[in-house]
């Protein structure tokens, strides 16, 4: 378990049912308050969809979750053995010589100079699941945005994380694969018992009734089940 706060980072109980716990979290950039008094907790094996308007602090929230940003105040506790992360902004270095295999291999927890046969087979299996097995030795620069996003998703999943964080994962995917992507995510969640935190603009594709939804606009305006979120939405608070 990891606890990020302004001053502390500690490890604790891995048998807890709690996966994420935010207490009085604030993030400020100079005078601008990006997140204001964020409090929530999420149990293991849950699926949470985070929605909100542009510039509402969704990506800031995700960055605090993955440890890229420390809160200005408050405490964040993550009870994950291993996290997988698909960032919103993917690598945009156009001249970088690197193959699909090299990128996916960097998602393994322990990396050797040369991948083992088993590791190569696992990479190949995931590429087949994502329907890009023909790209195994291809250069990343030759891939479309959607294909790149699938590669980075495999990188996030390859070491079987117990907490998967996806920041707008379908933004570059074509509509036909988007549907498959969510079916695949459901399958992974059911099979691997993974906790999933998913930031999205398009809630309709993603949600099942037993999921949680969080509406963020600098602070948490709504946190509850998808069913309750419908009521919140109908009361005219916002449209997603």
């Amino acid at each position, binding site marked *: 378990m990891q606890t990020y706060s302004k001053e502390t980072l500690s490890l604790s109980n891995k048998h807890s049912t709690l996966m994420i716990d935010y207490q009085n979290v604030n993030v400020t950039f100079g005078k601008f308050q990006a997140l204001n008094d964020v409090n929530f907790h999420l149990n293991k094996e849950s699926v949470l969809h985070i929605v909100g308007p542009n510039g509402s602090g969704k990506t800031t929230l995700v960055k605090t979750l993955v440890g890229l940003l420390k809160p200005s105040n408050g405490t964040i506790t993550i009870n994950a053995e291993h996290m997988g992360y698909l960032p919103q902004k993917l690598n945009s270095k156009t001249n970088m010589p690197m193959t699909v295999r090299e990128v996916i291999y*960097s998602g393994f927890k322990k990396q050797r100079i040369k991948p083992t046969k088993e590791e190569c087979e696992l990479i190949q299996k995931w590429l087949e699941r994502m329907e890009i097995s023909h790209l195994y030795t291809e250069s990343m620069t030759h891939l479309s945005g959607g294909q790149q996003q699938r590669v980075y998703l495999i990188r996030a999943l390859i070491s079987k994380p117990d907490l998967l964080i996806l920041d707008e994962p379908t933004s570059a995917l074509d509509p036909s694969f988007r549907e498959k992507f969510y079916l695949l995510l459901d399958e992974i969640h059911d099979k691997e018992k993974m906790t999933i935190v998913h930031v999205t603009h398009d809630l309709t594709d993603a949600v099942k009734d037993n999921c949680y939804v969080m509406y963020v606009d600098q602070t948490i305006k709504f946190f509850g089940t998808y069913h309750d979120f419908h009521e919140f939405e109908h009361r005219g608070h916002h449209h997603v």
Partner: protein
Amino acid sequence: MFDFLSYGFIQQAIVIGIALALSAALLSPFLVLNQQAMIADGLAHVSFAGIILGILLSGEALWIAIPFVMLASLLIKYLSTSKTINGDAAIGLVSSISFAIGLIIVKKSQGFNISIESMLVGNMFTATRSEMILSLLILLFIGLFVLLFYRKLFMMTYDLNYAKFSKINVSLLGYLLSALTAFFIVVGVRTIGTLLISALVVFPSVISSQITKSFKNTLIIGVCSSLMIVVMGIFIAHPLEIPVGSTIVVIYTIVFLLINTLKPLWRT
């Protein structure tokens, strides 16, 4: 034809050339592909002041120049990560100040008997034994650094945020990379020259990334091609009595142009 190989100073030049070429090619992808190619050029300018200070203050210039340039490299790294100014602006700032100070010291110092030209273009054939030992030492340090941290350095190069997320100490590795680059530059400036040393860092990755799709092969091809080009440069420069550093840079350029011309052919 190769009688000149029996001379001790030629053998020493070959050892230095190989050690520097391998060191530069090992650093190359982690700097060039991370948009830090100009750090080598900037540090070469800093080393100009460092070596001048070293000559004035001590009998052995490198004892002053190495820590001086290493400190400057850490300052550049600190300025570029502190978000006060951009990385390229930090390089420009620190290198131009150092170069200016170096020139002022040369002008004002009495009895400064080293020609500026020899410092700018360097001379591999007049290198000392201690410079040869330092070249081998820097190869050992850089080789170990790349071997031990290859995966982490690769992640830092292609996706810094993902490297941070993966709990890689990007700050420490970044400072180590800068310090080793500085060490290499100071040793290399005396033999290859202030103006040309950065070419040894820039060309290997620029050339190899034209040929291969993979990061690992970029490193391997860069190392092999540099080795051949530097040895070839020494063999051509000595009989023709032309500067080794300049010859190496010209060969690098010819190879780069050849690859770019032939690339469309082998793709078809």
